[in-house]
C-alpha cells in the first residue's frame, strides 16, 4: 500500500513535469525572441542612461546622473512637450475624422464594408516615404495646390502651405488615420444595434443615444485607436524633417541626432527612456479603460 501511494505520487509529479516541459516548449521560441531581441537590448539602452558619452560614440562606464539633469533642462523638456502637443493634436484630429468614417463603414452593406476597409488599408501598400513626399509635391510653392489656386486667380502669390507645424500634423494624421479607423470600426461593428433601438424606445434622441450608449461602449476602440495614432506620431522624425522642413524638431529627431550625429548614446538613451515612460503610462490607461468596458 505504501508503495502504491509512492508510485502514484511519482506518476503525478511526472505528468506535472511533462506539462511544464510542454509549456516551456511552446513558450520557448517566443520567450527567447522576447528576451534576446527586446529585453536585453532594452536593458542595455536603459543602462546607458547612467553613464558618460564616449568620444567615438558608445559609452564610458563612469556612473553619472547628468543625463537626467540635462533632460530636465527647458531646452529638451520643451521639445518633449512640443512633441506631446503635436502628437496629441494629430491624435485628436484623427479621432474626429476617423470616428464618423468608421461609423459610416459599419453601417454599410456587407459587400461595401469590405471594399471600404480595403480602401482604408490600401495606402499602406505604398512606401511611407513616397506618400509623405507626395505632400511636398502637392503643397510646395510651385506645387499642384498653389499653382491651381494661382491659375484660378484665388490668390496672388503661392501660399506658404509647407514646412510648418500644421503640415507636420497633417502628415501625421494622413499617415496614421487607418490605425484609428480600424479599431474604431471593430468596436462600432460589434455594437448590438438593439441597444440603440432600446435607447430610442426609451425616448432618447439620437444625440443622447450616441453620448450615453454608443460612445461609452466604443470607448475601448477609441482608446486603442488613439494609442495607435499617438505612439508612432510621438516618436516620428521623418515627417518633421520632410514636411516640417526641419524647422521644428520632435523628440524622435532629438534621439536620432544623439545617436547618429552627436554620438551621445547616453543622452539619446535617456530621451528614449522619457519617450518610453510616456508610452507606458498611456498603455496602462488603455489597459484600465478596456478592463472597465
Amino acid at each position: 500500500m505504501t508503495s502504491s501511494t509512492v508510485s502514484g505520487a511519482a506518476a503525478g509529479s511526472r505528468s506535472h513535469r511533462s506539462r511544464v516541459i510542454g509549456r516551456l516548449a511552446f513558450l520557448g521560441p517566443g520567450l527567447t525572441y522576447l528576451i534576446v531581441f527586446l529585453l536585453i537590448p532594452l536593458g542595455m539602452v536603459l543602462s546607458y542612461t547612467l553613464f558618460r558619452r564616449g568620444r567615438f560614440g558608445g559609452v564610458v562606464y563612469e556612473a553619472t546622473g547628468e543625463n537626467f539633469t540635462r533632460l530636465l533642462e527647458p531646452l529638451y523638456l520643451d521639445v518633449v512637450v512640443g512633441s506631446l502637443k503635436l502628437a496629441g493634436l494629430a491624435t485628436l484630429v484623427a479621432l474626429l475624422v476617423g470616428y464618423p468614417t468608421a461609423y459610416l463603414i459599419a453601417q454599410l452593406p456587407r459587400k461595401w464594408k469590405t471594399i471600404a476597409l480595403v480602401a482604408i488599408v490600401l495606402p499602406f501598400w505604398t512606401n511611407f516615404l513616397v506618400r509623405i513626399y507626395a505632400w511636398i509635391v502637392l503643397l510646395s510653392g510651385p506645387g499642384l495646390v498653389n499653382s491651381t489656386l494661382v491659375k484660378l486667380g484665388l490668390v496672388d502669390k503661392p501660399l506658404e502651405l509647407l514646412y510648418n507645424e500644421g503640415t507636420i500634423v497633417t502628415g501625421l494624421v494622413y499617415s496614421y488615420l487607418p490605425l484609428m479607423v480600424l479599431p474604431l470600426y471593430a468596436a462600432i461593428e460589434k455594437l448590438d444595434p438593439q441597444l440603440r433601438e432600446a435607447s430610442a424606445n426609451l425616448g432618447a434622441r439620437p444625440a443622447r443615444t450616441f453620448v450615453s450608449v454608443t460612445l461609452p461602449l466604443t470607448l475601448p476602440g477609441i482608446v486603442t485607436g488613439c494609442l495607435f495614432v499617438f505612439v508612432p506620431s510621438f516618436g516620428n522624425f521623418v515627417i518633421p524633417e520632410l514636411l516640417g522642413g526641419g524647422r521644428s524638431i520632435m523628440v524622435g529627431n532629438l534621439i536620432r541626432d544623439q545617436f547618429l550625429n552627436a554620438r551621445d548614446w547616453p543622452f539619446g538613451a535617456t530621451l528614449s527612456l522619457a519617450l518610453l515612460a510616456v508610452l507606458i503610462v498611456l498603455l496602462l490607461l488603455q489597459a484600465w479603460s478596456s478592463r472597465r468596458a
Partner: protein
Amino acid sequence: MFRARSPRSLPAAVLVTGLALAVSACGGGSGDTTAADSGATAAAAQLNPNADLTKQSVTVTVWADYTPKELPEKVKEKLKFDLKVTLHDTNEVAMAKLTSGADTGIDVAFVSGQYAQALNEAGLLEPLHPELIPNLANLYPEAKELAYDKGNVFSVPYTWGTTGICYRSDLVKTPPASWNDILNPPADAEKKVTMMTTERWLALPAVKALGYSVNTRSDEELAKVKEKLLAAKPHLLGYDDTTFGDKLKSGEAVMVEAWDGWCPTTEKNIKFVVPKEGSDLWVDTMVILKSSKNKEAAHALINYILSPEIHGWAAENILYKVPNKAAMDQVDAKLKADNTPLQMTPAQLLQGESIIDLGEDSTKFSRLQTEVKAAK
C-alpha cells in the same frame, strides 16, 4: 558626408537611408590640431615587400557605391588576392565597427579625415609604408598638406571637397557671394533658402560670416553664432541635408547651402559658389588598421585604388573631386565642363578650413543645433 552615388538627383528611395543616416555628415580633415603629437602612433610593423599576396585577403569597409562594383573581381585578377567589401552608412557606423574592441577583421577603412585623425589618436591605425604605395606619386602635392595628417602618415585621401552656396541663376537678381546672402536673404529669396541640418554645417555659414574658425570652441563665439542663426531662421524655407538639390530644381528654393558634389550644376540655371568669407574642406580617406593581418595586401589595394583607372572612376561616378592628378587629368572634359565644382583646383580647395573632431567640445555644436532647430 552621406554618400549617394548619384547626388544629382536624389530619389525618394535614397531618402530612406538619407534621412535616417545622412545627417551624420561629411567629414573634413583637421585644422591645426595634429594627431601626431598624441604619441599614439606606434612604430610601423615590419612589412615584407615581396610577401606572397595570394596568401592574404583584404576586407574593407566603405560607403555604398563609393568604389566600383567590380573592384573585387579586378583585384583578384590584378593583385591575386580576395577582396571583401563591407559597407557602412556613416562615419559613426564605421567608428562603431572599428572601435568595438576585439579584432574587427577589417583591414582597410574609408572614413573622413577627422575620423582618421581620431582613430590614429586611439592607436588603431598602421602608419603607412610609402614604399609599398608607389602610386602616391599620382596625388597632387596639396594632397600631402592636409592639416589632420600632414605628409599622409596614416591616411591617404580618396575624395575631397567643400561647402558653398548652390543657387538658381535665373531666379535671383544678384548671384550670392557671401554667407550673409543665405543668413539674411534678399527679398527675392525670402523663405526660399535652405541651410544644412547637421551640426557643424548648420553652423558653418554663421561661423564664417563672423570670421571665426570652423573649429571654434569658444563659448562666446558660439553664442554670437547662435544669435545669427536664430536671426536667420525666419527667412529660411527649412533645414535640409538631403533634398536641397530637388528643392532647387523645382524652384521651391532659389539658394541653398550645399556640398559641392551635391549641387546639380548640370541643370541649366544652377550654379555653385564658394562664399568670399571662405568655407570648409572635407576629405574622405583610406586607412589601414593596426590589427590587420594582411598589411602587405592592404597596401597593394590602396596602391591599386590610386591608379588613374580606379580613382578616375570615383571622380566620374561619384562626381566628387579626387586628389589624384593623374585621375583628374583623364576625367572626361565634357563631364568637367558640365560640373563646375569638378573644376575647382587643389589650391582653391586648400583655402577651405578643415573640420576636425572637437572631442568633448563637439557637444557644444550638438547643443547649438538643438537650440536653433527647437526655436520657434
